[in-house]
């Protein structure tokens, strides 16, 4: 059995390397995007093999699903999107050497730090502290209590990405489909109850099992993107809902910062959550973060600032 698993892992790594190479160097843009999506799907499988189902869930939803669809729709908007000219201007030779050199240095640095990781990890410390965090699942405890500052910064980075996309220009209307078939609107309407049910389930589950804000936000965002592509959420584009949209976008980050400042006032440490309120506070932060993540993913699909 071990030989079989080792063989499967080797096959997986080889396929990952091949797909990464294809995604980077295929001259046909569409094929490169499809290889990138397949790369992310296999990456999710790798996380499952590493026994990290939380990361696998987020990777499959955000990496393969949302990012792949984002790249595909962006490809559709490029002039001559499906053409072969993927490298309109070849990189200057020195830049290429610099890129190869920095990739090599970071690979060596990564290998060095993997060698010097604490063994056998921090599992015992986290399990010892788990009772004081308010949740019973170690990953959620780390993400939202022990290392909440990392999650806060991740949400801030996503908000930065949305601001960057919005700074490019006014929002674009989605393309009208080539056929008048009601399939796409019907699909999004049919699946919408599930797109609300599944994130709620994932959020609630996050306290004691794999799940939590990021997978929930990703699934909710995917449902929203389906609606956006079917032109079903026109309120995001209307000026009078602009303020509401912006408030919802920063809700997760704002609540996080409020919790952090509250911890500073009550206990003297930024983001320290008193044990008695931990469960309720974590749930509130998770709900707000999931909503914000879903809306941020949808906001990226507007390709610009709405209502400008």
């Amino acid at each position: 059995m071990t030989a079989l698993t080792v063989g499967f892992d080797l096959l997986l790594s080889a396929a990952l390397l091949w797909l990464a190479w294809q995604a980077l160097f295929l001259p046909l843009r569409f094929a490169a995007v499809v290889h990138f999506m397949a790369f992310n799907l296999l990456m999710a499988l790798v996380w499952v093999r590493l026994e990290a189902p939380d990361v696998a869930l987020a990777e499959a939803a955000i990496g393969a699903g949302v990012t792949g669809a984002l790249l595909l729709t962006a490809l559709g908007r490029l002039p001559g999107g499906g053409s072969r000219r993927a490298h309109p201007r070849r990189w200057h030779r020195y830049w290429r050497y610099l890129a190869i050199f920095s990739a090599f240095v970071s690979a060596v640095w990564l290998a060095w730090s993997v060698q010097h990781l604490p063994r056998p990890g921090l599992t015992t410390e986290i399990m010892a502290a788990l009772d004081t965090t308010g949740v019973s699942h170690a990953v959620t405890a780390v993400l939202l209590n022990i290392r909440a500052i990392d999650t806060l910064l991740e949400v801030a980075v996503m908000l930065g990405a949305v601001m960057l996309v919005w700074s490019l220009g006014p929002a674009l209307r989605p393309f009208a489909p080539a056929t008048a078939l009601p399939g796409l609107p019907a699909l999004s309407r049919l699946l919408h109850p599930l797109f609300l049910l599944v994130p709620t389930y994932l959020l609630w589950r996050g306290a004691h099992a794999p799940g939590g804000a990021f997978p929930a936000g990703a699934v909710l965002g995917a449902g929203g993107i389906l609606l956006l592509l079917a032109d079903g959420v026109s309120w995001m584009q209307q000026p009078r809902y602009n303020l509401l949209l912006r408030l919802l976008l920063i809700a997760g980050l704002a609540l996080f910062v409020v919790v952090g400042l509250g911890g500073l006032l009550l206990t003297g440490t930024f983001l320290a959550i008193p044990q008695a309120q931990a469960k309720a506070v974590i749930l509130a932060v998770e709900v707000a973060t999931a909503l914000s993540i879903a809306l941020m993913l949808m906001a990226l699909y507007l390709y610009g600032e709405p209502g400008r």
Partner: protein
Amino acid sequence: MTEWLSVASHVLVVAGIFFFLAGSLGLVRFTDVYGRLHALTKADNLGLGLLCTGLALQASGLAEAAKIMLVWVLVLVASGIGATLVASTAAACGIRPWLKRASAEREAAKRPAE
């Protein structure tokens, strides 16, 4: 009982893998977008159904089995509507279905006139 369930589960999973292989072969070998869609959706839906049924037989409880079967139902809905959309978009963009008659005529045109 459990042994029979295990045997049935393995048979179903192997049958599902066979359908996936056939679908992939069709995707690579068929001539146009409609034929490829036919191979992909038909074989994948049935293959995934067999695979999910096989895995559901090994599930620890009814709730887990129901979740696995829900995956299949969702893929059925999504791939059915997706395939219709792809095919109708291809038709609207003017891609004609490949016909054996048309290719036979082309073959006949290639042959020297008698």
